[in-house]
Structure formats: structure tokens, C-alpha cells
């Protein structure tokens, strides 16, 4: 059995406002375990604008600034500049935003921060919809999913089109480091964040973050579902170091059905629709494998 590599220190206190089984709570927990509590966190409108608690309380052990929905990329650039002029160049700045705040309304500012080479870590915790406002679709909602704005019905269809590929968008900015992580694989998560911390420039983390109320699954199944997303190749774990792709989990290649049928948001899918999703997942997995120069479960 491998030695446990996850630091014991906690940055997130219990009793916060997260829902039972909240994946985003685990994302923050592993993030702060990996980076330590001496970071500066910048959080826009998202679930994590509420989870820390109401004024004057906080369940976070780190200095945190909140900003407007679309402003995380801007905020981390401002923070970096201020700490640099104050002679504190070693302070780690972390932008921490949801998928809506990253792939939709915050994409411009994030692209700007990447192009400017802002020395910071940007984490997108991806629960695949606007969950804080009550499950509306985002550009990161997967094809076929139910949300309150893709409700199905006689004429309306479910979410159409694939989710936006944020990893490829960020890699196209030629940033030094990008990685996908999952709360189903905490060791891999923590190691990637520690690797990100060693780099300079903008580093991007795509964190898979199941949401029991939005995905309609039992709160006790969060980790199981996160694991299945990797094992079915729906959410591959990989990193891109200075343009070099490294797959960090092969995954068992289970049928997507195993992942989809555990969530109410996919319960309406027909066998044919599931088949179509299976096909797309296989194509994407094949593409990623062709791009990757290394494929290993034993990288670290």
C-alpha cells in the first residue's frame, strides 16, 4: 500500500455552508492541503462566495478577496502586481472560480491574465452548471444533461452540444502548466497542485466537482461518481507541462452507462443517446491519447 501523501493540515473548517456531499468543498480542501494556507484566494460569484459563511464569519483559514462574477482573471492580475511592488513575489495567488465564472462570463479576463503571463494559479471547479443560482446550464454542462434551463419537455431538448473544452483553450495560450484533477483521486489532485506551485506564470487547473443537488445523485456518491467519470474516460486526468501532454490515469475504460445511470440529470437518456455519448467519449479519448507523449498511472 502506498504511503499517504496528502498533508494533514486543513484550510477549510467544518460546519460551513456547503451542501451535503459537495464536491466543491473537497476541491477547496485538497487545494489548500496542497498549497498551504499562506495563499491569497480570489473568489468571484459562485458557490464558494457563499460556502465560507456570512459576514463576519469565515470557515476558511486563508486571506480571501471576493470579486465580481467575470473578474477573477482581473483580480489575480491586480493582486500579483500589488504583492510584487510590495516585494512579496513569493506569495501564491489563487483564482478560484466555477465553470460559469470561467468558461462563460469570466473567459475574457482569464484569457487576458494568461496572455499577460500573470503569475498565479487559476482553479476552475467544474460542477457543470450554474449551481449557486439553482442549476442553470453553462457552456460546461455536458451534452444530454437536464438543467432548469434545459428542462426537456415536448419541444425543448436537453443540453445540446459538447461542453466547452477549457483545457484546450488554456493550453492554446501556451501557459506553463495545465492539469485536470478530480475529487475522486486526491493524491493525483494534490501532486498536480504542488507541481503547479513550482511553475511561474499562469497555471490552470480544471477540477471535476460533482454536485449532488444539481446532478441529482445521493450525497454519499460524490466520490464514487467522480471516480467513474475518470474510469469511463468522460473526464480524463492529464496534465500539460510546457505543451507536453501527460495522461496521469489510464482508467478502466468502463461503459459511460456506468457513470450516467447514477445521476438523475441523465435519467431521461435513451439507449441510443447513451450510445452516441459513448461514441464521442471514445473519439475524444483517442484524440487525447494520440496527443499524449506519456501515459502512466505511476508518474509520481
Amino acid at each position: 500500500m502506498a504511503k499517504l501523501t496528502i498533508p494533514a493540515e486543513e484550510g477549510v473548517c467544518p460546519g460551513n455552508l456547503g451542501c451535503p456531499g459537495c464536491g466543491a468543498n473537497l476541491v477547496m480542501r485538497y487545494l489548500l492541503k496542497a498549497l498551504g494556507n499562506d495563499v491569497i484566494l480570489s473568489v468571484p460569484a459562485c458557490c464558494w462566495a457563499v460556502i465560507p459563511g456570512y459576514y463576519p464569519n469565515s470557515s476558511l483559514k486563508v486571506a480571501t478577496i471576493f470579486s465580481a462574477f467575470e473578474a477573477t482573471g482581473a483580480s489575480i492580475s491586480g493582486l500579483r502586481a500589488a504583492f510584487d511592488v510590495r516585494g512579496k513575489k513569493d506569495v501564491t495567488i489563487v483564482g478560484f472560480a466555477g465553470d460559469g465564472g470561467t468558461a462563460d462570463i469570466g473567459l475574457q479576463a482569464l484569457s487576458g491574465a494568461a496572455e499577460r503571463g500573470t503569475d498565479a494559479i487559476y482553479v476552475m471547479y467544474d460542477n457543470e452548471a450554474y449551481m449557486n443560482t439553482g442549476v442553470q446550464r453553462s457552456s460546461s454542462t455536458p451534452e444530454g444533461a437536464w438543467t432548469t434551463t434545459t428542462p426537456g419537455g415536448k419541444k425543448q431538448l436537453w443540453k445540446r452540444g459538447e461542453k466547452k473544452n477549457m483545457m484546450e483553450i488554456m493550453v492554446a495560450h501556451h501557459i506553463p502548466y495545465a492539469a485536470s484533477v478530480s475529487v475522486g483521486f486526491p493524491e493525483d489532485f494534490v501532486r498536480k497542485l504542488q507541481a503547479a506551485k513550482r511553475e511561474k506564470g499562469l497555471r490552470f487547473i480544471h477540477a471535476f466537482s460533482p454536485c449532488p443537488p444539481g446532478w441529482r445523485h445521493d450525497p454519499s456518491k460524490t466520490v464514487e461518481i467522480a471516480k467513474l467519470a475518470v474510469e469511463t474516460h468522460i473526464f480524463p486526468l492529464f496534465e500539460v507541462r510546457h505543451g507536453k501532454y501527460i495522461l496521469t490515469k489510464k482508467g478502466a475504460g468502463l461503459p459511460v452507462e456506468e457513470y450516467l445511470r447514477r445521476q438523475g440529470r441523465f435519467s431521461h437518456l435513451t439507449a441510443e443517446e447513451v450510445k452516441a455519448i459513448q461514441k464521442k467519449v471514445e473519439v475524444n479519448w483517442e484524440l487525447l491519447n494520440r496527443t499524449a507523449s506519456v501515459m502512466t498511472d505511476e508518474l509520481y
Partner: protein
Amino acid sequence: MRKVMTGDHAAAYAARLSRVQVVPAYPITPQTAIVEKLSSFVANGELSARMIDVESEHTAMAACISAATAGARTFTATSSQGLALMHEMLFWASGSRLPIVMAEVSRALAPPWSIWADHLDVIAERDTGWIQLFCESNQEVLDSIIMLYRLCEMQRVLLPAMVIMDAFILSHTLEPVQIPGQHRVDEFLPPYAPGTLLEPGSPSLFGSVAKPDEYMEFRYGMDVAMREAARLLPEVEEEYRRKLGRSYGGLLENYRCDDADVVLIANGSVVSTARQVVDQMRAEGKKVGLGKLRTLRPFPSAEVNGLIGGKAAVGVLDRSYSFGSGGALFSEIRGAAYGRSGSPRIKDYVAGIGGRDVTPEVLRGIYEDLLSGRGGESDVAWVDLAGGPLIRNAEGGG
């Protein structure tokens, strides 16, 4: 040192003299020369600051907010569409109680496209919790930026401020400007030292959720601060005058109003033209005066009443318009005067929209209209519209 320079360059020199540390900025005509000059100061090592080349004005202001929270003195500049794009973050800056100072080149909003002087961009941000100060000259731009850093960083104020200059009329017009020595500015303006600071290892939340039993007190605190700013601005100006030799008459300058029968209240660059008209008409024996409104926020209600009380008529020159109502300065001034004994008739003159020249002849026409005691069905008049009389009452509807 005395140099001939534009209003844009005066703003850049003021930022340099204020030793700003972080400058996130995005270019927009006619503000560009401010950013260009600051970039060259930094490139030449004449200013030790971080420029952040942002991808929008929204990001410029958002970056200012985070940088100021992390303890840096921040500066930016914008105009018109850019200010409108910042709108959301303007509230964020004031609500976070950050002493950000911004040069704002007031310019018309599209459509139709217009890059010329107009105050609607500024008026539309009146309620964002920013101090708004209009300038008459390039020298006033330079001095005001330095003065406002001093004012805004006071613990009793802690609000952001915009220093406003008219597009092209100031931003691109050369005027002689006295540049104070750095050591004299340093004596006036100490380094930025915020009491509360975002620091690693110091758990704290900046801008978290406040419930209804907390939120209102934050807003009340902002109003107290804004009223403190009104009280403290003349004191800051007096200190500036002692140390650097210039002042501008507080929130509302009285120019030949004491024995005047009629008074015109105006702001921005048109004030300097109006001074000449007042002098000429005084020479002709006409008792006219001029009030120069420097701050729209805080609004100097008491000063306005002190200036206009007992006059036969008061005109307000508005370089913007609220459609279906009237000019913003007019409604502010009439609101302040309402119910006071001896409060005069107040008439709104909407002029200079979209950069239309407000000439001495136009201003004379306004004074003559005031002196004539002419009324009309409306207290709001548009001035110098094409193909009509000089003064045309607002009309339409019922």
C-alpha cells in the same frame, strides 16, 4: 518647473508625482495619452510602478480593486464607453472603501459615435459612491489628482474619486502647467498605508455576504464618509495651498456672485469661458455672477444655497441630459434649493452636448435670458440647437 502640456499629460504627471504603484489601464480616445505617458515613465524608470495591460476597462477597475485591497496605491484612466463598462466595478471599489483615483475624460456616449465633450458618462455614474470632481484647467487636473489621493486615503473618507476633464477641450489642449517638485508632493502626500490589508497567513474575507441586518450599516457608513469628504476637501486644499501654492475654492467657487442679480452655475472647461463673459458683462454694468461647481459628489447643498439665496434668477448649465426630465445639475441644484426662503427661480440650460462649442456668444445669450426674466412653460431649455432660437424650451408631450 513650468511646462506646456495637455490635460492628459497633466494627469500622467500627477500620477507619477503621487508615486502610484499599480496602473491597470485600457486605451480609449481621448484618454490614451495618459496611459501612453505613464507607460513611457515606467519604461524609462521615471516611475516605479506596475502597468497591467488589461483587455478591458472592466478588468482595469477590477484589477485596481484587488491591487488596492492588497495595499498598492492604484491609478487608472478612462472615458465614455469605458467608464460605462466599468459601471459594475465602480460600485465594488466604493463598497470596498478603496481610495482609487481615476482620471476620467468626459466624452459623449454612442450612438451616434461621438468622441467629444459631454458629461453624460459621468452623470450616469453619479450614484456609484465615487467622489466626482470636475476640472476647469490642466493645472487643476494635476493638482486635483494629488489632492484627492490625500483626501481619499484619509481614514474618515476611504472612498474612490474620479478627476474629470472635458474631452479634447482639456485632454488635448496645451496649457502652461506648473509641475511641483517631487519632495514637495512627498511632504503633502504620505505613502499609502491602509489599516486593513489582505495578507497571506492572515485569515480574512474581503467582500463577503452581509445579510439584511448588516448590509444597511455599510451603506450608511459610505454616506458618512462622503459627507466627511465634503467637510475635509477644503482643509486638504488649504494644506495644498500652503505647501504647493494653489487652491480652487473648495466644492463651489464663487466668482463675482456676491452682488450679482443673476448667477449661472456651471462645471468643467466651460467655466473659463464663462469667467470672461462675466467680466465683459460686468464692464457693461450688468450684475452677473458665476458659480463653479467642482464636486457633483459629494454635492455641496449648503454652499449652493449660500451662493444663490436672494438672487433674482439662477441658471444651470448642463452638459448632459436625463431624457424626459432635465439636466442632472439642474435637478440637484433645484432639489437643494427647494423650500428655502429667498430661493430664486432656477432655469436649466442644456448646452455643449456631444462637443458642441459653448462660445462666449452662447453664454452671453444665457445671461441675457436670465436677466430678461423670461419664463415660459418649461424651466428646461436646450441651447443653440440647429435651426431655431438660441434658447429653446424643452417641449413635447403634455
